C-alpha cells in the first residue's frame, strides 16, 4: 500500500492506495500532538511508501515506519489530487483550516499559485470562529447563512474585527442569518481576488473542508459567474484531495 498523509493545521487525512485504487480514507483532528495522531492513523498499516504533505509534512521523518518516506508541498499535492479526480481541471481552489490556496494548472503542471500568508483570515478558521459567535456548529453554518437575504457588507477581513463588525450589525437589528451570509461573502470576495491573481480558468476544482459549505459554494459561483457541477467541480470528499495527491506521488515501484 502507498499512503498519502496530509498533516494540516486542523486535521490530518490519510489515503491508502493499492494498485492505484483507493483502499482507505481516514481523518482525525490534528490536536496538539500530531505525531500521536499520525501513529493512530497508521496503526496496523504496513505501507511500502509514505508521502507526507501539508504544513506538518516533515513530521513523518519522526514516525518509525521503516518504509520509504518522502514529502511534497501541499501545492503539488492538491494539484495532483485535483487532476486525479478531474483530469480536465485548470484551476484548483483549496480552502483549508488555516490556509487558502489558488493554483493554476496547464498541461498537468502547476503554473502559478497563491497562498494567504501569516494570517488565517478568509480560511476555514474564519468560518469556524464566526460560527461560534452565532452558536451554530461549523457543519450547519452554511445552511444557516443561506437563509439570509441582502447580506450586509462585512468590510473587515480580519477574523477578530469581523466579529466586532458582526456584533455591531446585530445591534443595528440586522437578521443574524443575513449577517452570517455577509461573513461568507467576505471570504468569497477574498478568495476570488486570489483566484484572479493566478488567472482563473474553468473547470475549477474546489477542495478542502470549506468546499462542503453550501453558502460559500453558492456565493462563489455567483461571484465568478460559474455553474456548479460544470465550471466548479467538488470531489466527493473534498478534504481528502491533498492526501490523495500525496499518495499518487508515492513510488509505485516499491
Amino acid at each position, binding site marked *: 500500500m502507498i499512503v498519502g498523509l496530509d498533516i494540516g493545521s486542523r486535521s490530518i487525512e490519510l489515503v491508502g492506495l493499492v494498485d492505484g485504487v483507493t483502499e482507505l480514507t481516514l481523518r482525525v483532528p490534528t490536536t496538539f500532538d500530531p505525531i500521536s495522531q499520525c501513529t493512530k492513523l497508521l496503526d496496523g498499516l504496513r505501507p511500502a511508501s509514505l508521502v507526507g504533505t501539508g*504544513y506538518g509534512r516533515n513530521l513523518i521523518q519522526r514516525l518509525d515506519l521503516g518504509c520509504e518516506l518522502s514529502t511534497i*508541498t501541499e501545492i*503539488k499535492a492538491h494539484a495532483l489530487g485535483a487532476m486525479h479526480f478531474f483530469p480536465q481541471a485548470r484551476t484548483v481552489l483549496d480552502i483549508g483550516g488555516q490556509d487558502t490556496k489558488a493554483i493554476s494548472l496547464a498541461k498537468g503542471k*502547476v*503554473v*502559478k*499559485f497563491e*497562498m494567504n*500568508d*501569516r494570517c488565517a483570515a478568509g480560511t476555514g478558521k474564519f468560518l469556524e470562529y464566526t460560527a461560534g459567535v452565532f452558536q451554530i456548529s461549523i457543519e450547519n453554518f452554511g445552511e444557516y447563512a443561506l437563509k439570509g437575504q441582502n447580506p450586509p457588507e462585512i468590510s473587515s477581513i480580519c477574523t477578530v474585527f469581523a466579529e466586532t463588525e458582526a456584533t455591531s450589525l446585530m445591534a443595528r437589528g440586522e437578521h443574524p442569518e443575513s449577517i452570517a451570509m455577509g461573513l461568507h461573502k467576505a471570504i468569497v470576495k477574498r478568495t476570488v481576488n486570489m483566484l484572479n491573481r493566478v488567472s482563473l480558468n474553468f473547470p475549477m476544482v474546489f477542495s478542502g473542508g470549506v468546499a462542503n459549505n453550501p453558502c460559500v459554494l453558492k456565493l462563489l459561483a455567483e461571484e465568478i459567474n460559474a455553474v456548479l457541477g460544470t465550471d466548479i467541480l467538488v470531489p466527493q470528499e473534498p478534504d481528502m484531495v491533498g492526501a490523495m495527491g500525496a499518495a499518487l506521488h508515492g513510488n509505485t515501484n516499491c
Partner: protein
Amino acid sequence: MGGAVSDSAHREMWEKLDLDLNAHDALLGVLGKFYGDIYLSQENRLQGAEYLDFVLSEIHGLRIKELQEAKAEGRKVVGSFCVFVPEEITLALDAIHVGLCAGAEAGSDLAEQLIPRNTCALIKSFIGFKLAKLCPFLESSDMIVGETTCDGKKKAYEAFNELVPTYIMEVPQTKSKAAHTLWKSEVLRYMAELEKVTGRTITPEKLKKGIRTANAKRRALQRLTTLRAASPAPISGRDALLINQISFYDEPVRFTAKINELCDELENRVESNEGIAPENAPRLMLSGCPMAVPNWKLPYVIESSGAVIVGEESCIGTRNTRDLVDESGETVEDMIDAIVDRYMKIDCACFTPNDDRLENVTALAKDIKADGVIHYSLLFCQPYLHEALKVDKALQAEGIPMLSIETDYSMEDVEQLKTRIEAFVETLE
C-alpha cells in the same frame, strides 16, 4: 562573532562608543549562532570564504578598531543607508565610507514609539539600532547621510535627526533632465559639506583615485556576478550575498584584492566543472529589496529547498555594481558629471517610471540562465511591492516564472516561506 581574539579590548572600545554592552553581547551571540547555522554548516566552501568568516567575526571588532585608529589620525567616517551616497567623493576626501546597521530586528519596540508600526523592517531596524545602542558603525560616524529615496525613509530621517544629526541628500524621483540637474547640485552640496567635515579639499588627483578605487571594487563584484552564473554554480548564493554585504563594511582596497583572489579560485572551480550544488539544481535569481547583514533568512530558506541562488538584483547586488563611473575625466567638473551620470542609472524603485529595471531584471535573469526569479519585498515597502507586479509581467513575457515574497526580519513566517518556496521549486523541476 566577536571571536575570543581580543574581546576585552573590544569591550573597552564598545564602552567608549556608549553601546549597551549586555544587549550587544546578546546580539553578537545570536548572530554567531545564526552565522554558524547558515554559513559554517555549508559543505565544499571556497578557501576564500575564510576572509568572509574573518571579516564577519570581526565586523564589530577589528573593523571598528580600524575606524577608531583612522579617526585618531584625523580621518572622518561617513555612515549611510543607501547606494546613492557617492562613495567616490568620500574616498577622495580621505574619509571612510560605511553602511550602517539595518539588517536585524533590534530595538523595534523602541523604534515603534518614534515611527509608525507599518514601517518596513529596514527602517525600523536602523532607528532601533540607534535607540538600543547596538551599532558601533553609527557611533563611529562623523557624518550620517540619509536620502529621500522612499517616503518611509525620508520621514524616518526626521525622527532619526532628533537622535543624531543626519545630513539628507535629495534623490530625485524621475530621470528627467531637471532631475539630473537636481542630483548634480546634491552631489556638489555633499562634496562641499564633506569638505567642511573633513577640513580637506577635493583635487582632480584625489577624485580620480576615489573613482578608480570604487570602480575596482565594483569590477571585482562584477567578476563575481559573472563567475557565479556558471553551471554548476561554483559558490552558494548565501556566500555571494555575504560578499556583496561585506563590500559595504570593509576597507575597499583590501576587499577588492581579497574578492579578486576569491574569484581566481572560482575560475579554477568553473574550469574543473566543480559546483557547490548539483548541475541539475534549480537556479534561482533574487530580485527586489536589499538584504543588509545579517538578513539571510530568505536565501537560507531558498537554498535549503534544494535550489541555488545564482544572482542578486538588489542594492546589495547588481544594482550597486552594474554601472561604473567613466574614468576619462581630468577636471573635477568632468568627474562630477561622470559620477552624476553613473548614479542616475541606478534603477531604484523610488523612480517613476522605472522601466529600466524591468529590462535589467529580465536581461540578468537570461544572462545567468535563471530557471526562476524570487522577488523579495519587505513588508510595507510600497515601491518594490508595486514593482513586483510589473516585474512578474515582464518575466512572464520572457517565459521566466516568478514567485513574489513579502516578508520582514522576523522568523515567524519561516514555515510558510518554506512551503511557498518549496512549491515554487517543485514547479521548476
